[in-house]
């Protein structure tokens, strides 16, 4: 899957939740959204890309959300 597109999608999700006042909950919500709505190969493709290319393109909240993330 196109990693650039996946990063943009993840950041778009982050852009919605980062406005929430409870940062801890918002970070969890980003991870939950990706788990619930991204097909496993999308999740895996993103994690594989980040492990080899780094996560510089991610919003902070997305980076934090994916830190404890285990792709299917």
């Amino acid at each position, binding site marked *: *899957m*196109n990693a650039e597109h996946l990063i943009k999608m993840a950041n*778009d999700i982050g*852009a919605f939740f980062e406005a929430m006042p409870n940062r801890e909950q918002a970070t969890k919500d980003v991870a939950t959204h990706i788990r*619930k709505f991204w097909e496993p190969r999308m999740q895996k493709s993103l994690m594989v890309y980040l492990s080899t290319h780094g996560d510089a393109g991610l919003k902070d909240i997305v980076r934090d959300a994916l830190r404890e993330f285990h792709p299917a």
Partner: protein
Amino acid sequence: MFASRLKRRLRAGARLIVVDPRSIDLVSSPHIKADYHLQLRPGTNVAVINALAHVIVTEGLLAQDFVDQRCDVEAFNVWREFVARPNNSPEALEVMTGVPAAKIREAARLYATGGNGAIYYGLGVTEHAQGSTMVIGIANLAMATGNIGREGVGVNPLRGQNNVQGSCDMGSFPHEYPGYRHVSDDATRTLFEKDWGLSLRKEPGLRIPNMFEAAMDGSFKGLYCQGEDIVQSDPDTQHVIAALETMECIVVQDLFLNETAKYAHVFLPGSSFLEKDGTFTNAERRISRVRKVMAPKAGLGDWEVTVALSNALGYPMHYNDPSEIMEEVARLTPTFAGVNYDKLDRLGSVQWPCNDEMPEGTPLMHIDHFVRGKGRFLITQYVPTDEKITPKFPLLLTTGRILSQYNVGAQTRRTDNVRFHEEDRLDIHPQDAEERGIHEDDWVGISSRAGDTVLRARVTERMQPGVVYTTFHFPESGANVITTDNSDWATNCPEYKVTAVQVVKVKHSSEWQENYRKFNETQLRLLKEKVVAGAVATVNGH
């Protein structure tokens, strides 16, 4: 249907606020005149809803009793503090939205204090990068003013087709089972596994744009497409076609050989609503029977084709009649537990939830409490779309549909409706046209970062300066050659409503249109040869 009822109420004295980038008929037409037209810039919906909420909160127009009794007060307080911030005021957002602050203030006062207030919205809300955020913003506004849970108020999404609601109800999302239950819910999944005798995945599937992405990397190889023409209706046509060309098996089932069928390996005939039994469910959750008035010309109803395909693939289905399918739906879906064909015949129609508690259906929801319990306000931060105007693409294109053509036009282009709308045109404001030396009926090239196409111009003050508009009812128009892969953050619904473009006067069709013309001619010639060969074979066979 909705508009005719809406107009009847307007003629009887109801007040109206229209939020639309264009001066649509509802703004001003015989016997109809909107009190306020908030003519916003495409892509700024969330800024407008936040500005409306700001006025309601800061001018003391809240339905505080409703909020106190029905809503999560902690979440409400967080939302109230957010929308009250100065950066959400109509004055602060005016430069982005293009809507005069005074108009926003007056419209907000009317919605909050004008008696029953109902919000109706179409794809102009959802087909944006922030479509889901806007839906949340609308729900916030309705709760804040107490406009929900009784007759004459509410939030009413108008569906793009007659059975969008029914399809959603029945789990057509890649992450849900019927009744909006997530695939990861063990209890629900176990219910279906036991009933069907199968093991089912607990992870979500791919959405359409994700399927194209997966096809491009070689991991998505087959598609069964029923009654939808993704080649014409989906954004970034060239990307869609490139993805389809990588697939090993595309099955299209449709009434007509549509644009997607030209890329199919197998074509299965579809049946029209006059040729099949079943139900349609409309936007008010109303389930109505569809009864065939003639036998399917293709020999089988749509459901029978699906059953035959399933049987051939190794999962035998044993339905003898669509009513048996509804029995299964009722057995497995709590909100449909009381629905059956006898009841539909007796009552005429039923609005779900229909179960032991509400055996004749539920005309109104959220009367005393919300289905989820307390109404939950959520912050809706305005995030401008990435699709921004630049010196290269200085205009914003927004696309839509008109009354006389149905979506991609596969059905209506074959009727006399073409007299009302015989081609897709580009609507452009006189000022933008003059700057470009464009006159009525001129051919104009429209280019975006995704592609180019050529249409004839219609110079009209229905548009605001800086914004152009077209429809996508004719495949040769290539309207979706221009639209991009931008999509909603939550649903991946394409952002059809905002594309940065340039428009110039031209004399020739675009390269894509030339290629399309040749491709189409080849396809139609091959089809004709096949039909003739088939006819000869039949004759020889006899």
